[in-house]
C-alpha cells in the first residue's frame, strides 16, 4: 500500500534535498527536485514559489534555469520540522 504524504512531509523532503543532495553549489534544478520529491511540475512550482516567498529557499537564475538552495531560515525550519516530526511520531501521528 502506498503511503500518503502530508503537504508538510513533501516540504520537508524538498528542503532536505536542497540541503543534503546538491550536486553543485549553484543549487538544485526543478527537474532534480521533481524527481526527488516525486510530484508534478504544477504542484512543485506552487510549493517552491511559496518556500521562496517565505524565505526558506533561495532562488538563483543560472545557465538559463532556476536553481534552488536552502536558506539559513530554511535550515532552522528543517531542524524544527525534523524535531517535531519525531515528537508527533511518538503519538503515532505525522505532522
Amino acid at each position: 500500500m502506498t503511503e500518503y504524504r502530508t503537504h508538510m512531509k513533501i516540504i520537508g523532503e524538498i528542503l532536505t534535498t536542497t540541503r543534503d543532495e546538491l550536486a553543485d553549489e549553484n543549487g538544485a534544478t526543478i527537474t532534480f527536485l521533481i524527481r526527488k520529491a516525486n510530484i508534478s511540475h504544477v504542484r512543485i512550482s506552487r510549493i517552491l514559489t511559496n518556500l521562496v516567498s517565505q524565505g526558506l529557499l533561495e532562488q538563483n537564475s543560472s545557465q538559463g534555469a532556476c536553481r534552488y538552495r536552502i536558506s539559513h531560515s530554511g535550515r532552522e525550519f528543517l531542524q524544527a520540522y525534523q524535531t517535531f516530526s519525531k515528537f508527533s511520531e511518538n503519538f503515532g501521528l505525522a505532522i
Partner: protein
Amino acid sequence: MEFLFENILNLIGFLVGLTIGSMSYIGFKNTGSPTLFRLSIAFFSICVGFFVIWTGFMIEDFVIKSGHIERGVQTLGIGIQTIGYFFIAFSHGIKSFFPKSRYFRSVGMFPLFLVSLIHIENIFRSISFILLAYGAIETMLSYLESRKKGAIFVTLGLSLLAFGEFIGWYSFVFPESILYYLSISIKIAGLISLFIPVSRVPLRKIKFDEL
C-alpha cells in the same frame, strides 16, 4: 489521604499537560502543522481540566472544608479533560479515515459535549475511556508501522489512563473502596509514561527564531 492522592494526580496531570501542550504549540508556531495544533489543544485541555479539579480540591481544603469536592467542579474538570482526549483520538481518526481531506486537516470539528451531575461525570468518564482506548490502539498500530520506541510509552500511557478512567468509573459502584486509589495510581503512572518520550525531544538544539 484522598485529598493528598487527588492533589498529586492533578498536579502531575497539570504539569504533564502543560509541558506537552507547550511543546506542541512551539512546534505548531515553528512549522504550522495542523497535527501539532490539535495536539496543543488536546494537552492544554487536559492541563486545564486537571487544574480545575486541583483548584476545586484546594478551595475545598482551605476555604469551604466540607469534606468533599464540589461535584460540579469535578464534572467540569473531567469534561474539559474529555475534550482533550477527544482531540487526541480525533487526530488519529483523521489520519486513519480522512488522510487526504484538507477540511479535516485544517481546523477540524470542535466537539459538542453539551443531564444530575454525577450522571454527567459518569458519561464523561465513559467517553474518556473510549477515546483513550481508541488513541492507545491507533498509537500501537503506528508503532507496528514505524517501530519508534517513543510510541510504546505513549501507547502504555494512554492505555493506563484509559484503565484508570475505567477503574475510576467502577469506583462509583463500590465507593470508599481501594478501587479509587488504584484508579489514581494508574492514572499517575499513565501520565508519567506519556511524558517519558516527550522529555527526550532535544528542544535545546533548536533556535526558535521567527521564520
